[in-house]
């Protein structure tokens, strides 16, 4: 055998041994089971993985949820009479804006539920996950605060020595980022923290999606890969974790992202959040609760309709997709395409070695980011949301993504749509560049 023959031999397909197939199958079954549970049940706890939207998002589905880094919502639809009573009380007290009187009512309601609310912070501090993770400048902070796109709930609830503070939220027409600070919980080495279950309602309703995870200090670098937000070199620990969930002061931040297709759904709405049982998760499995308790919060999201809206007819190369409408806010984007449906078949091999194929609709060139007036490219802005055809009978394809950083709308020159796969730091040539009108 010469060198060429050796390499050819190594490139030959081999029979995967039974023991390998069996263990892989067990892992797949575990994932399918976890996915199935998440999709079908409404009464069980949250798992630490992304799950497709119930009743949607199948292979040829319509408007799919795109969760990126976060979790699928698992909202209980049964009415919790105690919570609803509190919500009704809050509605009675509701005035436009967020007055001191209203805050007092909200804190009282939360104190009754939590039982140990201790204080309200006297100053408004940006959370690490929003300030660092969303890469917000001082100027943007001031602007977002002035526009009341940001709310500082600053409610503390302590149970069994674990203090959780509903710190801050940023809300626009389609999304709301909410941050909880968790203190007094010692995370076991090699594990990730997780709440077993979370319930969220906005204005007493839960017909929206939410996803959540603990902030780990990672952002997307210029080359599209994970990078530490603080600029330090990326390091991997012995368990394969590259993020740093526990901050230097021992606290952690839990970030919840709410998403609705209905414009303005969250703006100036009262929110009720219950976090149940704090534990750890590893390898797609909730490992149990270290602390069984419930932390409850109520406040007003405030928020701002700060969308810039653009009508256009921009054909994206020879992709067949035409961008018709774009709404851009500092933290999200909504795009409407005209994109006639094309069915695509993807081939694969299942665990029994049998060929399988699945059909789904091709996607239009995806919104990736923006080009700023100074020439800077932000090509990796997607941070979860939804995409898909508006309904079964239309060729209008809708994309609604949260952005992974706050952008200055006045400085946006063009939108970037994916033309090809990019390895390394992309240039304009890698995108369809659509100037804003």
């Amino acid at each position, binding site marked *: 055998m010469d060198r060429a023959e050796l390499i050819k031999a*190594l490139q030959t397909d081999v029979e995967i041994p039974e023991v390998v197939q069996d263990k892989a199958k067990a892992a797949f079954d575990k994932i399918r089971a976890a996915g199935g549970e998440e999709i079908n049940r409404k009464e069980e706890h949250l798992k630490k993985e992304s799950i497709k939207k119930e009743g949607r998002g199948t292979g040829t589905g319509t408007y799919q949820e795109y969760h990126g880094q976060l979790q699928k919502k698992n909202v209980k639809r049964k009415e919790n009479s105690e919570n609803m009573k509190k919500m009704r009380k809050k509605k009675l007290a509701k005035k436009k804006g967020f007055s001191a009187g209203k805050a007092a009512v909200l804190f009282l309601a939360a104190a009754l539920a939590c039982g140990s609310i201790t204080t309200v912070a006297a100053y408004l501090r940006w959370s690490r996950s929003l300030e660092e993770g969303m890469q917000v400048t001082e100027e943007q902070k001031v602007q977002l605060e002035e526009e009341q796109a940001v709310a500082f709930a600053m409610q503390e609830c302590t149970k069994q020595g674990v203090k959780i503070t509903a710190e801050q939220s940023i809300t626009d027409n389609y999304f709301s980022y909410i941050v909880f600070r968790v203190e007094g919980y010692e995370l076991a080495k090699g594990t990730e923290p997780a709440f077993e279950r979370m319930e969220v309602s906005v204005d007493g309703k839960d017909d929206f999606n939410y996803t959540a995870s603990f902030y780990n200090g990672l952002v997307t670098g210029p080359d599209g*890969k994970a990078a530490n937000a603080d600029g330090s070199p990326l390091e991997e620990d012995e368990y394969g974790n590259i993020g740093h969930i526990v901050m230097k002061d021992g606290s952690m931040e839990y970030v919840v992202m709410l998403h609705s297709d209905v414009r303005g759904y969250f703006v100036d709405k009262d929110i009720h959040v219950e976090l149940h049982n704090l534990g750890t998760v590893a390898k797609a499995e909730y490992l149990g609760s270290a602390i069984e308790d419930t932390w409850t919060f109520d406040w007003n999201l405030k928020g701002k309709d700060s969308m810039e809206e653009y009508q256009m007819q921009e054909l994206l190369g020879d992709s067949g997709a035409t961008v018709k409408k774009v709404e851009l806010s500092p933290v999200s984007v909504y795009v409407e395409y005209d994109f006639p449906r094309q069915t695509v078949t993807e081939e694969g091999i299942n665990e029994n070695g049998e060929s399988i194929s699945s059909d789904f609709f091709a996607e239009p060139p995806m919104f990736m980011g923006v080009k700023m007036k100074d020439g800077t490219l932000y090509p990796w802005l997607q941070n979860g949301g939804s995409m898909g055809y508006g309904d079964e009978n239309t060729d209008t394809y809708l994309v609604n993504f949260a952005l992974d950083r706050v952008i200055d709308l006045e400085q946006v020159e063009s939108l970037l749509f994916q033309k090809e796969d990019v390895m390394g730091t992309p240039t304009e040539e890698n995108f369809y560049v659509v100037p804003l009108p």
Partner: protein
Amino acid sequence: MDNLIRRAKQGNPDAFVALMQSQMQNMYKAAKAVLRNDEDVADAISDTILVCWEKLWQLKEEAYFRTWMTRILINKCHDILRKQKHISLLEEMPEIPSGERNYENIEWEEALASLGEKYRLVLMLYYVEGFKTGEIGEILGMPESTVRSRLARGRQQLAKEFA
């Protein structure tokens, strides 16, 4: 594959399973270049599948999926080696019981065994998995120059072996 990755990132378990199934040959060969027995390879692959499902959100760009997944796999293989303290035993590939293997597997494992341990993984990732030297550097956590020199030495060794 991009479409499967995107759908898997949406949280679609069926898409994720199909995606990982399409990578079984690649994963098996890469793991086998590090670990000597199939039980360990099975553990490394099943752990990789679960970790990829859990951490897929960390992957921003679909084009990096194979590099990212292979890096996780190789780390899992090294974890297993560390735990078993078998590193010193791996200088030579073990005898392969051939009774239950088909001819293709025997030939493949013999070819694999003929690669020196030090260069085996780099050669596998380059010639079999089709990664570029920069990608191999990222997978193995070493500078691209080291990858290039290992490839060059691996080739020299092969040239000597098969002269």
